[in-house]
């Protein structure tokens, strides 16, 4: 199933929540969606025959400068097709429902997105930092990140 068909199927099911499909040179085809129903969209993508996106390849937070975002790379092992979902979030209130219930692999990915970008995932079972120490300050992969001066008495910048 190609990305147009996937988009049409999603559009007919979720209507306004699905914003656009982008197919450009140098871009993997991606669908921009609204954050509110992301969990339902993911469940739909996973469970409906013909879509069967059973494999969450990658989930990552993004800092687009003005706003934050989450990117989902999905793949179907049985049907061998791919799609990318993109969600944009405001910097003031980066909250998005967790998709941990759809794909278990999202658990650690979402913890990492929280750790690195400060994106909050609603209903995540274990919403703590993963890579940085639990008492680390700030979210390092944000473009405006400033390193803390010391950590446990050790100097952090050079």
């Amino acid at each position, binding site marked *: 199933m190609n990305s147009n068909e996937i988009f049409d199927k999603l559009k007919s099911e979720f209507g306004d929540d699905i914003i656009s499909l982008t197919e*450009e*040179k*140098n*871009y*993997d085809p*991606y669908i921009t969606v609204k954050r509110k129903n992301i969990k339902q969209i993911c469940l739909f993508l996973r469970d409906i025959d013909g879509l069967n996106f*059973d*494999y*969450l*390849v*990658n989930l*990552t937070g*993004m*800092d687009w400068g003005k706003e934050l975002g989450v*990117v989902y*790379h999905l793949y179907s*092992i049985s049907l*061998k097709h791919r799609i*990318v979902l993109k969600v944009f979030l405001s910097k003031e209130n980066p909250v998005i429902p967790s998709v941990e219930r759809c*794909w*278990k*692999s999202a*658990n*650690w*990915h979402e913890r990492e997105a929280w750790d*690195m970008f400060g994106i909050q995932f609603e209903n995540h079972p274990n919403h703590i*930092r*993963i*890579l*940085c*120490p639990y008492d680390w300050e700030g979210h*390092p*992969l944000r473009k405006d*990140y400033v390193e803390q001066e010391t950590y446990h008495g050790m100097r952090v910048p050079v």
Partner: protein
Amino acid sequence: MGQRKTIEIDYGAVDTDRMRLNMGPQHPSTHGVLRLEVELEGEIVTEVVPHIGYLHRCFEKTCEFMTYPQVIPYVDRLDYISSMNNEWPFVMGVEKLLGIQIPEKIEYIRVILAELNRIANHQIAVATFGMDSGAFTPFLYLFRDREMILDLFEKCSGGRLLYNYFWVGGLQHDIPPTFKEDCLAIIKKVRETNAEVNNLLIKNKIFIERITNIGILPADVAINFGCSGPVLRGSGVPYDLRKDEPYSIYDRFDFNVIVGEGAMGTLGDCWDRNIVRVNEMEESCKIIEQAIAQMPDEAVDVRALVPKRVKTPKGEIYCKTENPKGELGFYIVSDGSTQPYRMRTRATSFINLSVLPEISKGYMISDLIMILGSIDIVLGEVDR
């Protein structure tokens, strides 16, 4: 010793204390600096909480400050056991953004080197897995024979462990004149060693008893957890990017995708994951043999297409290859400058490790070590 079976016992009213045991970050068999917080009921593991990040080296942040060619050495240091394989998806992604079509001979060289590195990686994986079970000698045998592969890589790139060999648009240096003979000698040696290790370790009754029927990972759970590589194939899912979405020139080779069959116990146990790695070495040997036979003879300037200044057009690309540990992908976001705007790594070990708490409950602490070993993680890639 008979078939093992799992029985459920409800402790119910029995008042027993559980012990919290902290394994790592310094522990001989956590394969680096992984820390596992384990809850024990006697010897039986009731809960595993992995704590990672002890080797978080800020790879993704550092890349945003580096130009594309400068990123390659950092990519090496992700999964430092299979550096050649790591470089490939990144280089391929940048080439795709730039629209470079590289010569056929370079593709062959890349395939051969990547497959050799796959063998080296699996040798380490099997070796450390054996060492976790207490067998120290096979570990040393495999490391000894891995040196031959490292010697060839050293002849090519000058590095023993981290190579910086695949460049955008070509290679760092041309291959040495004795390349083909070296490869054939390595294949011969790998087969000899495999036979030796099979006798010493893989077919050892104690070893088989230790690793069958533990850490059972059903296929649907493996897919749901996003596992890939031998962990997923051990559960019987024939998912291999080299076959499913052939990149480079993999569609020209005849090889099998090894999947676990539950030959010794239940499908998806530690035995299956291990035997997939052992058999994949043989498949890699086959690919290398075919590649050497097909490789064009004429000399190619390997740096002819290497751009002086890598400046990618605006775009986003997810480029993936089949690494020894599974699917490694780089999500490269380019804003049209010489530096990536964002480099996201789909780190295989990171995702494979997340399945550990799911499959290690209810087994003994010795089994936990073996289950961890069978997943074959590298902390450099887990923590990045």
